[in-house]
């Protein structure tokens, strides 16, 4: 049972991150290598807020907002300048961002591990189907589900979502219709950064906050988006569940092999469905 809970919480976390990644790709055509760095930054900023205010909830609220503002700034100052060039240049630029963000983090917070305490009301374990489940894990699942739902409503049902989808599928046409595509791009990058940092802030009580945390998670996200089909948010949710559950089961029964299992999943997908499990279009990104 606890395997299921851990798997689900992991899945939602992966989904928050890969949703942002996939959203940014769909809109900007950019694979954001710095996504993991933004996730890490979310965790550090929320740690800082918890240090100052003592409240986990303020951290969970404000850390993503601060990182989203930073994301918007990055998009305006740097990314905007390379849209007209080959996609590879955008990838290179976001790779450079990793180095800058990593060292800035080192400069501000130093080298040692940071820890965010679990909020008090969520420390007690809950008895569920005969096993003791940490209530914070349940909170992560509920919160992740809520955010995912909100994201779907935003993209699928709201006017903003319609604008984003329009600008993603045909930027020129959207521009002709009077949509300020530049602003939409900035907004989407900020939204992606927000989701990454939200993932970081919500993971903060579960893991030690450290410098390497960004990169290990970005690899998992890449696996998710490749399996799910890049730019495909529905694919991302299935792929997140698949990977999250695989990892949770792996941790329980074959800890040594978890990492390799992840890659086996990736290679298996590519051997049999190179376009991703949930994609109908050919892949020529």
């Amino acid at each position: 049972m606890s395997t299921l809970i851990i798997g689900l919480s992991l899945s939602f976390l992966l989904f928050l991150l890969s949703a942002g990644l996939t959203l940014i790709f769909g809109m900007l055509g950019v694979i954001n290598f710095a996504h993991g760095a933004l996730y890490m930054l979310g965790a550090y900023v929320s740690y800082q807020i918890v240090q100052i205010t003592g409240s986990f909830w303020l951290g969970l609220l404000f850390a993503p907002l601060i990182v989203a503002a930073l994301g918007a700034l990055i998009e305006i100052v740097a990314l905007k300048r390379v849209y007209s060039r080959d996609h590879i240049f955008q990838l290179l630029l976001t790779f450079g961002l990793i180095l800058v963000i990593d060292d800035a983090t080192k400069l501000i917070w130093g080298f040692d591990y940071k820890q965010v305490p679990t909020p008090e009301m969520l420390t007690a374990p809950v008895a569920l189907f005969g096993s003791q489940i940490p209530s914070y894990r349940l909170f992560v699942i509920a919160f992740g589900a809520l955010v995912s739902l909100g994201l779907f409503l935003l993209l699928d049902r709201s006017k903003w979502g319609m604008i984003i989808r329009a600008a993603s599928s045909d930027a020129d046409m959207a521009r002709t219709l009077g949509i300020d595509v530049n602003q939409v791009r900035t907004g989407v990058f900020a939204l992606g950064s927000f989701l990454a940092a939200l993932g970081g802030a919500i993971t903060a009580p579960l893991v030690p906050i450290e410098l390497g945390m960004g990169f290990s998670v970005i690899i998992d996200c890449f696996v998710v988006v490749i399996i799910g089909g890049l730019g495909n948010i529905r694919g991302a949710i299935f792929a997140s569940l698949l990977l999250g559950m695989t990892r949770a089961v792996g941790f329980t029964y074959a800890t040594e092999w978890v990492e390799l299992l992840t890659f086996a999943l990736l290679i298996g997908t590519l051997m049999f469905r190179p376009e991703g499990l949930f994609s109908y279009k050919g892949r020529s990104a």
Partner: protein
Amino acid sequence: MTRRTVGQTLMAVIIAAMIAIPFFLPGEQWVNLVSLILIWALFAIGFDLVFGVTGMLSFGHAALLGSGGYALTVLTLSYQVGFLPALLAAAVMGALLAFCMGLFALRVSGLFFALLTLALAQMVYILASNKLRALTGGVDGIPGVPRPDLFGINFYDNRNYYAFIVVVFLIGLAVMALLRASPFGRALRAVQANDTRASQLGHNVHALRQSAFVVSGAYAGISGGLLASLMFYISPQMLHWATSGDVMIMTVLGGKGTLLGPILGVAVFELLKEELSQVTQYWYGILGLIFILATIFLRNGIAGLFHGPDDQDQGGAS
């Protein structure tokens, strides 16, 4: 002379001067620095055959470099193979791993290729740090990688080993220059420019990509072997994603798609690293910032400064 030729000659002169410096200046630090630059430059010109010429961004070259390093180390230390055969084996190992990675990674193209090579290289990194501990020494690495043992020369003297590196580097550079000017090199450029058209002209695009990756793997393998021998040490750090990132930064900084650009890129990278790391421990971040500025403002890298702006993405026979 056109501006292009002047620029190329100038670049060649600068590189020649750099190679000559350690022979004339006393002081170990020059020998060590230029040794490092030449080994990484060999790695970078191999990387650029895939990236700059064929147009595929590989993020898995760390695995190729490391596999060569481990091949040389294990063969010389555990099986008492001579240095030169082991260096050859390092090239074969790099090429073989590139072939295997290509089997998976070449099923996709564009950005997916970058992501997949990265994932595959991470897998090799994890294997080397954990699963293959018996062979690779795990995260502790293997100390005592030997130097060449030829003609009775003492290659444990850094100056003599430097001469060895220069010879290997010049051979590698000459072979690469020939490859790039050959019909094979031109076909690779055609694949980069427009793969559909290239295939309609009768080129086997998949085979061309695979071959470029394999050749690049051989270069990486040799560089890895030389690097392990230079340091007397190898660890999974060589397989870390940052290694793939470094060679990419060097190549872009120097000018992708040009033969001499990446060499200058490596030199600038290593010099900056040397100087910045003495001033601040945050040199990598500053380097990242310089790299970002270079991607935005220096379209064709340092080579672009020499070639002039007329040299968009085609590079010619340079």
